[in-house]
């Protein structure tokens, strides 16, 4: 809703939505800014980000393109979205769900403890154990850079191990990899631990070099006196002394080099009595705009231009930051256009494979314009860094939906923006079916659809036999065993209750099912209701149907209708093929019925498709 709230307010006020957004931004001199709900927004220069984005993203040109497209009758819209991107969650924020009394009883919760351990081994190699568990974000690289810079050693001398074991490694409540906590928190702990290692090594070196520790320079694998670069020791030699010669160490110093730092920010205070909470430590800023054209004929979106800007404070590594933006944008594009958890009313999950749960792949991940803009460091994190990975998750779906809303003038836009949905937004009612010719009437009744929660079908077939003959066939378990597709056995428990084993499927998809069938409302020889269930490894189904017999010239018309509820594997992954499968099975059933009830008559070949083709004037 917020996505079009601003757009709606702008519309009501007759204002440009971007102007309205800009008017409501926090000004650069208001930071740190305490928001009404308790957030302490640390730093930013939102006006500068917006100005840079408009200029580098060429907003004026995009507006001209929109106007030209609209003048030519095309559907083109521009969308905007801004987000304040929080990072490093306050562990107290979940407590806001509780009442003040419950909170007091449970005791205070706040902070977000980060930790890091740095060791220097007897050969001078540096090991870092962090408290993040990345999935490819490059945290090892960033930590190695931070530690290498602090200790003045080559990058490749630092090994980072993030395989956290809570029994032997540093960790605390907030450890892990979520809520953009790496850049603000894990790096702060690493910086602190590296400073402690450096202080200890400076004390050791100071004793040998006869220089006060604060006057030592750590650079290129050497520790040297600032005043006299000739007076120096190798880093690895100082590291080795701590292990090989404890007697050489300053008095009272522990041998070895292993420093553990736990770091927390005092700004992350508990929830107040008035339910106020500073939910996160650092707050970045993101601003996106885009131009989108809708194909009226297909409902497809063409993203003409997508511009994205991020101020995440100090950028730890430009390559990693760009990777975060691209990855987050591609993922958000998937959420905007493709991704959806779809369930049937009975809970069957319909989008459980990557054939049905569509994500943006390299083919769909268009290249956004990435804006170069300000980096306003956070005053609350040790390196001034803030999170960046989540920004596009907030902005991109909103930005695209706003563009679609702008293009078609609707405010009830929902994501994912699937072509079928967009098509119906931009087109009116469907062209009705033409009047059917008389010989098409029967055809139109052969209808099977799997639109709602059930697979429904209806149709009829003509059997050149008497109603009594057909009825007798339908009520005879031995006959039915021969007619039901794939029936392996059928036992009559009573006149109206049968159980059996059925092997059926479509093409190579075959399963064995235990069937339980009951006949109800038997009206010999005109109608019967059939209820039943099938249970097998491929899924379960229960259904209800009615068969009606109407005697006519030369035979009887057998009409049927049914609804089947399916669940299990087949319902989850085979939805696309189920109506076709049901059609095939029903055809097979009736072909067999004709064959058994009227054995002397050659059954109609080709089934529905054959008749359809014959009527449509195909080659056959």
């Amino acid at each position: 809703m917020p996505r079009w709230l601003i757009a709606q307010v702008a519309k009501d006020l007759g204002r440009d939505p971007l102007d309205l957004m800009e008017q409501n931004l926090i000004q650069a001199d208001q930071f740190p800014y305490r928001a009404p709900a308790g957030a302490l927004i640390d730093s930013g220069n939102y006006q500068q980000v917006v100005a840079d984005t408009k200029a580098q993203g060429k907003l004026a040109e995009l507006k001209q393109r929109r106007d030209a497209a609209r003048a030519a009758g095309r559907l083109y819209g521009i969308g905007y979205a801004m987000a304040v991107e929080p990072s490093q969650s306050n562990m107290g924020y979940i407590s806001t769900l509780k009442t003040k009394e419950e909170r007091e009883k449970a005791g205070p919760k706040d902070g977000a403890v980060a930790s890091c351990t740095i060791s220097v081994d007897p050969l001078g190699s540096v090991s870092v154990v962090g408290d993040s568990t990345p999935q490819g974000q490059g945290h090892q690289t960033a930590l190695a850079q931070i530690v290498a810079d602090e200790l003045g050693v080559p990058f490749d001398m630092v090994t980072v191990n993030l395989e956290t074991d809570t029994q032997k490694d540093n960790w605390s409540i907030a450890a892990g990899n979520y809520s953009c906590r790496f850049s603000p928190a894990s790096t702060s702990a690493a910086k602190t631990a590296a400073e402690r290692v450096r202080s200890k090594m400076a004390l050791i070196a100071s004793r040998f070099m006869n220089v006060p520790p604060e006057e030592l320079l750590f650079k290129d694998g050497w520790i040297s006196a600032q005043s006299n670069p000739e007076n120096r020791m190798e880093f690895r030699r100082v590291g080795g002394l701590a292990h090989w010669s404890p007697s050489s160490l300053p008095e009272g110093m522990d041998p070895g080099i292993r420093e553990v730092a736990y770091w927390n920010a005092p700004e992350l205070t508990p929830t107040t009595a008035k339910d106020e909470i500073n939910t996160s430590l650092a707050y970045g800023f993101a601003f996106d705009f885009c131009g989108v054209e809708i194909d009226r004929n297909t409902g497809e979106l063409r993203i003409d231009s997508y511009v994205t800007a991020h101020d995440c404070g100090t950028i730890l590594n430009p390559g990693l930051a760009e990777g975060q933006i691209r990855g987050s944008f591609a993922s958000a594009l998937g959420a905007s256009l493709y991704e959806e958890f779809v369930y049937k009313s009975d809970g069957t999950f319909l989008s459980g494979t990557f054939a049905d749960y569509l994500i943006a792949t390299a083919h769909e991940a268009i290249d956004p314009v990435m804006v170069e803009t300000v980096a306003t460091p956070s005053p609350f994190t040790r390196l001034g860094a803030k999170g960046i990975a989540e920004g596009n998750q907030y902005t991109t779906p909103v930005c695209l939906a706003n563009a679609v809303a702008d293009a078609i003038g609707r405010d009830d836009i929902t994501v994912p923006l699937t072509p079928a949905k967009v098509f119906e937004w931009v087109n009116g009612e469907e062209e009705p079916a033409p009047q059917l010719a008389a010989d098409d009437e029967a055809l139109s009744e052969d209808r099977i659809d799997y639109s709602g929660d059930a697979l429904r079908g209806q149709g009829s077939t003509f059997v050149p036999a008497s109603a009594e003959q057909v009825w007798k066939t339908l009520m005879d378990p031995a006959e039915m065993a021969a007619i039901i597709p794939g029936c392996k056995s059928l036992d009559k428990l009573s006149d109206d209750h049968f159980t059996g084993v059925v092997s059926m499927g479509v093409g190579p998809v075959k399963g064995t099912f235990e069937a339980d069938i009951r006949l109800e409302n038997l009206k010999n020889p005109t109608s019967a209701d059939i209820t039943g269930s099938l249970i097998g490894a491929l899924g379960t189904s229960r259904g209800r149907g009615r068969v009606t017999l109407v005697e006519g010239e030369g035979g009887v018309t057998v009409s049927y209708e049914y609804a089947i509820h399916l669940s299990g594997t087949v319902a989850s992954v085979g939805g696309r093929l189920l109506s076709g499968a049901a059609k095939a099975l029903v055809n097979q059933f009736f072909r067999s019925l004709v064959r058994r009830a009227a054995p002397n008559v050659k059954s109609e070949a080709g089934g529905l498709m054959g008749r359809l083709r014959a009527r449509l004037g195909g080659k056959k």
Partner: protein
Amino acid sequence: MKPAPFDLCIADSVEDVTSALSSHGEAARIIAGGQSLMAMLNMRLTEPEVLIDISRIPGLDRISVDETGVTVGATVRQASLAAHDGVRQALPLLTEALTHVGHIQTRNRGTVCGSLAHADPSAELPLLLVLLGGSVTLASSQGRRTVAAEDFLIGTLTTSRRPDEMIVSAHFPRAPAGSKTAFREMARRHGDFAIVSLACIARGRDVRLAVGGVADAPVAVDLTNVTSETLPAELNALAWRLRGYDDIHATARYRREMIRRLGLDMIMEAMA
């Protein structure tokens, strides 16, 4: 996600395959590229007792182009057909449609005849076989027979191949001299199962149109005396006859609309 246990039979000749098929029948399944079958095996949607690997049989990987059209052996990969210069000249429509079949990676393994045998109602190769009036040649220990596309592709994942038969080749006839062809497809993403796929051959005002993804097998219709005035009504009638179906990717209405709109666009392009 592992297949149920099966025996693997690696065939050296067509006779190996037909003899294995005659002894195992429906319990056996042929594998060539495995791009549809492996996914179904892994999800245990199908659990054949025997897989017969035909990919090493010499001579089945031939593509031949003559004045009648393009004949494709059972183990020809989709990528090989797509890259074949002779095919591109004889049947550019086939080359174009192949770019919509899955992805580069799946086309590198997937075979043309495997796609026909799988008979997915939204697949492009069955659509073209029906449009062009092509055929499939089947071999069994009883001998060989050639079946017309429309008699072969009879329903969802269902063909008229008998359990003791294998496809040895498929024949895609050339479009008639002086005709023009066109292709359209709508899928959620490039390479996904088509929501609707359409192909046509136009010669003068006669148009043959094939539609995939809407009914349970590709359907072709012949339209005569087509004009831009009469075509929309004919496409509307066809759309309503095929009806389509709802799934999580598109509605039945959307499928009908694509017949109307992409169909019109495509046929007008071919007739231009």
